[in-house]
């Protein structure tokens, strides 16, 4: 809420956004408990959490372009929350895979991690997000100074890896992963464009 701890409309908006981003998790739990998630709730949860993780990453990457557009730093104040939501959904995704899907079968998990390109891409993405989540606090930002920004550029790599993960796991020629790829290309392209235009 900023060091001045002023209670502004942004604070209210933060609460609203927080609740909105919790809602999908609540909906998932309700769907599973009620049986509405269908006969294969593990698959359901894997897909829902994976998709939410990716959406959160994309949403997080929209904040900087929004800052340029609105010429306001307000969007940036949502960066940590949205980033941590991305991390939350991805961790849930990974936990569901290891505990529920693979049932902690270490041999099978290691086989996946070494042999299957889409899993490797997902894992790279997940691993890259860990230091970002750890260094997301105010104190860490202060401590790292300029290096914080460089470190957090890793989110670009994590997002690319996540989209590759999705493209490679999809069966047949599905459009959805390509839609995410296109959105990511635009979001990263805007940054490049700006950089080169400024020299």
């Amino acid at each position, binding site marked *: 809420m900023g060091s001045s701890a002023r209670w502004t409309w942004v604070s209210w908006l933060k609460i609203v956004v927080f609740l909105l981003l919790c809602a999908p998790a609540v909906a998932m739990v*309700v769907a599973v408990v009620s*049986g509405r*998630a269908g*006969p*294969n709730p593990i*698959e359901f949860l894997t897909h829902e959490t994976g998709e939410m993780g990716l959406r959160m990453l994309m949403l997080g990457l929209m904040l900087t372009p929004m800052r340029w557009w609105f010429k306001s730093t307000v969007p940036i104040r949502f960066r940590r929350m949205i980033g941590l939501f991305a991390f939350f959904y991805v961790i849930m995704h990974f936990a569901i895979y290891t505990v529920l899907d693979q049932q902690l079968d270490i041999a099978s998990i290691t086989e996946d991690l070494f042999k299957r390109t*889409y899993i490797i891409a997902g894992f790279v993405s997940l691993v890259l997000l860990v230091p970002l989540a750890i260094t997301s606090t105010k104190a860490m930002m202060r401590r790292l100074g300029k290096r914080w920004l460089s470190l957090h550029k890793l989110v670009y790599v994590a997002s690319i890896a996540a989209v590759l993960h999705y493209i490679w*796991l999809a*069966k047949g020629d*599905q459009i959805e992963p390509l839609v995410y790829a296109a959105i990511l290309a635009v979001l990263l392209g805007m940054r490049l464009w700006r950089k080169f235009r400024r020299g």
Partner: protein
Amino acid sequence: MRDWMKMAGIRSSEITDETVFRQRRHLIQAAAAAGITGAIASEAHAKSNPLGMPVKKSDYTVDGELTSEETATTYNNFYELGTDKGDPVKNAKFLKTEPWSVTIDGECDAPGTYTLEDILKPHDIEERVYRLRCVEAWSMVIPWNGFALGDLLKRFKPNSNAKYVAFETVSDQKLPGMRSRVLDWPYREGLRIDEAMHPLAFMAIGMYGNVIPNQNGAPMRLVVPWKYGFKSIKSIVRISFTDELPATSWNMSAPHEYGFFSNVNPEVSHPRWSQAKERKLTGSAGGLSALFASKTETFYLNGYADEVGSLYADMDLKKFF
């Protein structure tokens, strides 16, 4: 987004009922026209036995819990009706099965276009309980109603050049999933002639004693229980006898992932996941308990090795996966 219906609490059964009802009526008419049931196919009987035909039990059955009818009819892969497992039941109404005809062509002496009634006429309907193993590592146990595929194929008098049988799914209807080019439509499948003639290969027109719902491949679909589920092609409109190995949809889409044979084999993993285990979907473990149900071992040829193992006796199954 794909699961908005589930999230919104819309039960799929609310949607199926009407479609299934119309389907049943159609099949009863077909059965009546075929003279199998004669007077039995009255409205009154239709209610008690919607398939409208006597169904005799067969020796083909398996141990283990049956998958609930709701599960087997609401969790489907039928890409013409959408790629999500819940899509086919939602979009079932777009598939029109009345009238229905099947074109038989290629290396046989009795080619032609036959109405569904003509196709069904001579066959006694039996029930077979088969395991179904999806390539995605889940499985079900389903009571199918139908007849041996070989009995049907023999009627068209395949000649000595008929080394394979190719099948096609309906593609001349504007089905919602066909707007995207997930696969190269029409959906195609195929079997070697000895596989097709094996008594285990089955043509289903019903399940659970009911007319097969659209999302499960109405009005007529293959059931080849020792192969991954996608081989059991749905809503068949063409059967061709060929002397060359026919092109099959998933093989065309990803040749290194899906072979022509696609026999269930725990030793040969799919490039993207292991096939050693499967998740049994019974539908009885509801809610949270379904999250912790353990996986079970997958068996070679889905447990049908005694019956069909000899078909592959001297083949390198790593190569011919």
